[in-house]
């Protein structure tokens, strides 16, 4: 933690030093001591609300979809396993931005064709796209985590009379969760960063606000630097939370 704090502070100091060179930097746009700068900063950081809301909703949905997609991968019948493969291969192959356009502009048309009239606003367009796009990866994480539990565990569960479903619930999944958590946290960080794409369909989250301010203030360097720092703070907080969670689970194991 201390190392990272130092790294963060020194990079800030470096930037400030750069800004001393005349004509290159203009920190005044986001100088909290001036009225204009303070207004700008408040405008930018209000984007946290949407970015966090979109990311959390998308992550929760992605975990639910991911688990639902992953479980059939363990069916004995290969026709039951097939939907899992198709879903993962298909969704994983679609780049995020085209999928976002498709969901935002295309999905309402498809739904209207089916007689359902919905309009998708930028917020839900972003949530749906991020959740779908990420769920393919979440499903693979679940599958890998479950497969990493030694085969002997399922065999032992079988010899004490547990059905496959009960073995999964009481023996396999509790052990898989520990292996799943770190990569899942990684995916959450990925979602937070990819939520920046929501700006192109007009969602006023962190990136969109920065873009809008650049258009009026003509100071891209300073504003985008702050934007990056905003994401950095968000991601560092998430990483700290995940490490805390892992430590807690690790302590649980050795008890």
């Amino acid at each position: 933690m201390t190392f990272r704090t130092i790294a963060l502070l020194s990079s800030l100091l470096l930037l400030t030093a750069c800004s001393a060179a005349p004509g290159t930097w203009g920190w005044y746009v986001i100088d909290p001591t001036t009225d204009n700068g303070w207004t700008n900063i408040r405008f930018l950081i209000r984007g946290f609300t949407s970015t966090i809301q979109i990311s959390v909703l998308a992550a929760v949905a992605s975990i639910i979809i991911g688990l639902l997609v992953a479980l059939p991968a363990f069916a004995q019948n290969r026709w039951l396993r097939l939907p899992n493969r198709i879903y993962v291969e298909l969704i994983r192959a679609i780049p995020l931005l085209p999928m976002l356009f498709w969901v935002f502009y295309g999905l309402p048309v498809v739904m209207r064709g089916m007689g359902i009239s919905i309009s998708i606003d930028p917020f839900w367009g972003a949530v749906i796209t991020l959740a779908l796009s990420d769920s393919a990866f979440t499903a693979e994480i679940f599958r890998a985590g479950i497969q990493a539990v030694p085969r002997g565990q399922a065999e032992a569960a079988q010899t004490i009379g547990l059905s496959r479903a009960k073995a999964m619930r009481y023996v396999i999944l509790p052990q898989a969760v520990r292996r799943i958590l770190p990569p899942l946290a990684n995916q959450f960080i990925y979602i937070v960063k990819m939520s920046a794409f929501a700006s192109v369909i007009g969602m006023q989250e962190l990136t969109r606000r920065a873009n809008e301010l650049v258009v009026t203030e003509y100071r891209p360097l300073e504003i985008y630097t702050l934007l990056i720092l905003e994401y950095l703070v968000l991601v560092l907080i998430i990483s700290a939370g995940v490490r805390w969670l892992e430590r807690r689970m690790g302590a649980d194991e050795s008890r």
Partner: protein
Amino acid sequence: MTGVSKWYDDFQVLRDISLTVEVGEKLVICGPSGSGKSTVVRLLAGLEAHQEGDIHLQGEVKNVQRPGDIGMVFQSFNLFPHLSVLDNLTLGPVKALGLSRAQAEERARTYLDRVRIPEQADKRPAQLSGGQQQRVAIARALCMEPKLMLFDEPTSALDPEMIAEVLEVMEDLAADGMTMICVTHEMGFARRVADRIAFMDAGEIVEIGAPEQAFKAPKSERFALFLDKILKH
């Protein structure tokens, strides 16, 4: 089991195995690695499928048995690492047999006494020695009150000083009249406990008979050679 054969793709692991074990009998199976002895036990436990032949338990086709009728002890223990010793023991009785928590715990404590580690109930498997873990695994199988206990090289993963404590528990069990099929290379155990010893090689039962006679005068050359190898060291 009668006329049981099994293939992994083109490779035949079991060739026409026929074997009857009476209630209360103790059978030891030995043989070189790859001879199919573990496969026999795993088939009986329902962990693998065979292609030819039938397996019956007390006159019934094996698949209609009550859960836990056949107890299994693995070489690598396979305890559930995320559960306490007590929870390892009660999981089957509660979730598969429908016992209440209290009934299951009482039963678990009875069997922990039998394997002589009542004081370890609240620990995690990782905190126990190998010998203790294997005794917990035996107790876990016993909690399902099985009619037949299978052992697949139960002492092969243990340090020498821990083998004795596990064998003692198994001998106790044998003395109580449990029906047992045990894959092991512990010839001392076989001599003391087994009613019959079967020698397997290349997927066949080469020889089966009383241990005393088998050790003194093995009928087949392959068994003689095998005994010579493992008794020498």
